[in-house]
């Protein structure tokens, strides 16, 4: 095997610098924590995905169900329905709290963010390790719900069901969500401080890679919104265990109040899921178009705009919950507003592609498909934010299809695209392009096949979360389940592709894709402290003329010494001289 000159697999790198499982479990290295998050998220994705497949199996035709009395004689009809309720609940809760929310920020963000900043680590490495351990604890809590009968409240935990007749699983689930919330808060806190205080010489705010802007906006949301889910879950817990009465009408409480609390977090949480995906998109589109990204500032600012607006739209989940018409009108209007920054991003990506020299590598295929998937998911969101239309579509499969297009079609696809993109950096090896493209095609076709029919079923009135349906919806559900089978094959093959790359992949050059951000300026995989010596100086993160292709490396190298700007402020030297850097650390 020929190793490129810059490949560090044979030398000391962060993967082999320390040995033994304890050196992983107790590490404070953000790269190792990022990788462990990645594998944790994979495991949870398989866990939640298993239930998704069971749901689609059950719904494949009106009369099939996997708990056939002939197979399981003891199962009564009611028990089967209960089992179905638990499956979609666990699918939803695990996918949201344990997969998508930590997916890009905690796994990819942890790995990439400090390297992109040219820093040695995040600002608080031990806090970072603590958030990972909290994540594990939260995951265990969710798994423990099965030991007490399973959770069947839906991922939203609405009282009065969740505080009354639901089983003991509510205790573990709320506790798990509470713990995961703190994991998320600490990650966000870490990232905000890291971006504020550890930016390198010359990296002013508007020279930050767009991924960092997106992660920053996400972190702000994590910090501001997540405490509210923390307290809501705590209140739900005391309501369940001690009947405190705040959410229970018989005791004078108000169940709609819980919905306000819940969506005050959970709507911003939707943007906690999608914003990092948008950040990954910007990196992928920029790099693989071999062209400076179009509208850098508007992409950066639209991330912040989305973060701000996302706080004042939560009521659109509550149009039919007894919320006042006045509030619904306000929330409906504000929800339209959030479409503007989202559209700005899409337009900018499309404009970046225009006249670019596009390379259809696997990460780029995912990125390109997201333009379609996010377009569909985003635009159908506008249907739902229109109050009158929402009354018809509320709690139908239209909603299910809409949020899957955004959360899976955009967030998970960006996650997979990001894994392919940064895989050479993480493991120093390239993934197979052939397998990558096949799995992308399976995932993309399967995804559209699964969820496009659900839009139609939804507009015809098929309600979500039901165990069974009328025969008129049979055709949509049949195709939907076929699509799900495609996704199953695609995801399993994706996992195989990742494992194959890690174990037998071609050693990667330092910069295989031609990225200009700092993580491509170090070795693949990076040394323990990210850079040998001082990190390279910062240029424009999207000026592709700064790197050029070297045939013998099958990768890119800096085109010219980057320290050419005489006006570049020598930050480190002045730091050592004790100069305050308020311009860099606002």
């Amino acid at each position, binding site marked *: 095997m020929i190793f490129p000159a810059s490949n560090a697999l044979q030398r000391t790198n962060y993967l082999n610098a320390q040995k033994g499982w304890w050196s992983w479990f107790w590490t404070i290295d953000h790269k190792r924590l990022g990788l462990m998050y990645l594998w944790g998220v994979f495991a949870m994705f398989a866990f939640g995905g298993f239930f998704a497949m069971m749901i689609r199996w059950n719904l494949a035709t009106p009369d099939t169900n996997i708990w056939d009395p002939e197979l399981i004689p003891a199962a009564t009809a009611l028990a089967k329905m209960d089992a179905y309720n638990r499956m979609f609940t666990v699918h939803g809760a695990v996918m949201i709290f344990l997969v998508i929310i930590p997916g890009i920020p905690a796994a990819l963000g942890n790995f990439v963010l400090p390297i992109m900043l040219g820093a040695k680590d995040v600002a*608080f490495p031990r806090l970072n390790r603590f958030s990972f351990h909290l994540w594990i604890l939260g995951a265990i809590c969710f798994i423990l719900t099965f030991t007490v009968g399973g959770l069947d409240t839906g991922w939203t935990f609405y009282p009065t069901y969740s505080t009354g007749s639901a089983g003991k699983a509510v205790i573990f689930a709320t506790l798990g969500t509470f713990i995961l919330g703190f994991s998320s808060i600490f990650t966000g806190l870490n990232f905000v401080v890291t971006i504020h205080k*550890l930016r390198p010489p010359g990296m002013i705010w508007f020279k930050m890679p767009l991924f960092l802007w997106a992660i920053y906006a996400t972190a702000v949301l994590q910090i501001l919104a997540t405490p509210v889910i923390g307290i809501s879950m705590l209140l739900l817990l005391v309501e369940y265990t001690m009947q405190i009465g705040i959410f229970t009408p018989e005791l*004078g409480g108000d169940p709609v109040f819980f919905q306000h609390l819940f969506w005050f977090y959970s709507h911003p949480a939707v943007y906690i899921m999608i914003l990092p995906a948008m950040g990954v998109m910007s990196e992928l589109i920029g790099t693989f178009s071999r062209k400076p990204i179009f509208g850098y500032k508007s992409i950066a600012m639209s991330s912040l705009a989305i973060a701000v607006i996302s706080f004042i739209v939560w009521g659109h989940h509550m149009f039919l919950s007894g919320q006042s018409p006045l509030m619904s009108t306000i929330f409906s209007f504000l929800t339209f507003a959030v479409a503007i920054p989202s559209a700005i991003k899409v337009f900018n990506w499309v404009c970046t592609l225009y006249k670019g020299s596009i390379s259809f590598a696997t990460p780029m295929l995912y990125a390109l498909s997201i333009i379609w998937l996010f377009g569909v998911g985003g635009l159908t969101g506008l249907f739902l934010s229109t109050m009158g239309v929402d009354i018809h579509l509320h709690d139908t499969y239209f909603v299910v299809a809409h949020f899957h297009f955004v959360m899976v079609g955009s967030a998970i696809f960006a996650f997979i695209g990001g894994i392919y993109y940064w895989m050479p950096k993480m493991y120093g090896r390239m993934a197979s392009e052939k397998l990558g493209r096949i799995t992308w095609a399976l995932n993309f076709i399967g995804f559209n096949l699964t969820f496009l029919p659900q839009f139609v079923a939804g507009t015809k009135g098929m309600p979500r979360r039901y165990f069974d349906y009328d025969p008129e919806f049979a055709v949509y559900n049949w195709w939907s389940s076929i699509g799900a089978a495609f996704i199953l094959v695609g995801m399993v093959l994706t996992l195989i592709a990742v494992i194959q790359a890690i174990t037998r992949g071609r050693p990667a050059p330092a910069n295989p894709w031609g990225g200009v951000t700092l993580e491509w300026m170090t070795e693949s995989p990076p040394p323990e402290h990210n850079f040998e010596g001082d990190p390279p100086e910062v240029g424009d993160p999207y000026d592709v003329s700064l790197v050029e292709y070297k045939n013998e490396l099958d990768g890119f190298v800096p085109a010219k010494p980057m320290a050419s700007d005489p006006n570049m402020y020598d930050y480190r030297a002045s730091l050592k001289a004790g100069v305050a850097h308020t311009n860099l650390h606002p």
Partner: protein
Amino acid sequence: MTATAHAHHGPAHLQHHFETSEQQFDSAKLGLWVFLLTEVLFFSALFVAYTSYRSLHPEVFAYASNYLDTNLGAANTAVLLLSSFTVAWGVRNAQLGQRKLLIMNLIITLLCAATFMGIKYKEYSHKYHEGLLWGGAEHSIFKHNQFMILDAVKEHSHAWNEGVPEAGVAAVKDLSNDQRRDVSIFFAIYFCLTGLHGIHVLAGMVLLTLILIKVLRRKITPEYYTPVDLGALYWHLVDLVWIFLFPLLYLIR
């Protein structure tokens, strides 16, 4: 570990990924302020609950507040303010390297915190004996939908039979069922807010004790007093919350 394996220059407290002590100090402080922000939002839900129910039932809140002891509330406010002062003084001691004074101030702060919790315990146990609890509690006199099983509790409760004599407030038995249900929400919010605040006091005590240990082990110097500064900031937040809770809960006419 990683941090120690990497040979770094500069003072011993400087972690490997920071360039200067100042950068490290600023980062820690920014991080703590962000954390305080999350704490404010953590309490926010209960403040929303409080404001909603009070704006819907102002008379109920005025009635129920009479059952809280203003003197004990005021005493607790004074105790917390004093502890805030001593911990702020402690930061000054740490900055100036006055080790003995710092130890003294931290101990006084911890004693104040313990006093606060002691008074809180007295209030809670009184409420418990009177049955002035939230609607669903076993001994609550507000358990309006289960009249039969609660008679025994009611007879022993002063609040149920007599009201608050000095304020001339009607006894709970004279309220309608709806009113009793609303009053029980006041106590639910009271216990949630003060309970959550009490948990923060306990967390602050643990934090301050850890800092005290650091001081005793001579880890705190005028060059590196970050833990004292951060611990003090956290403690002030606990005080800040109480500054609002006191008038909101105890001083309703």
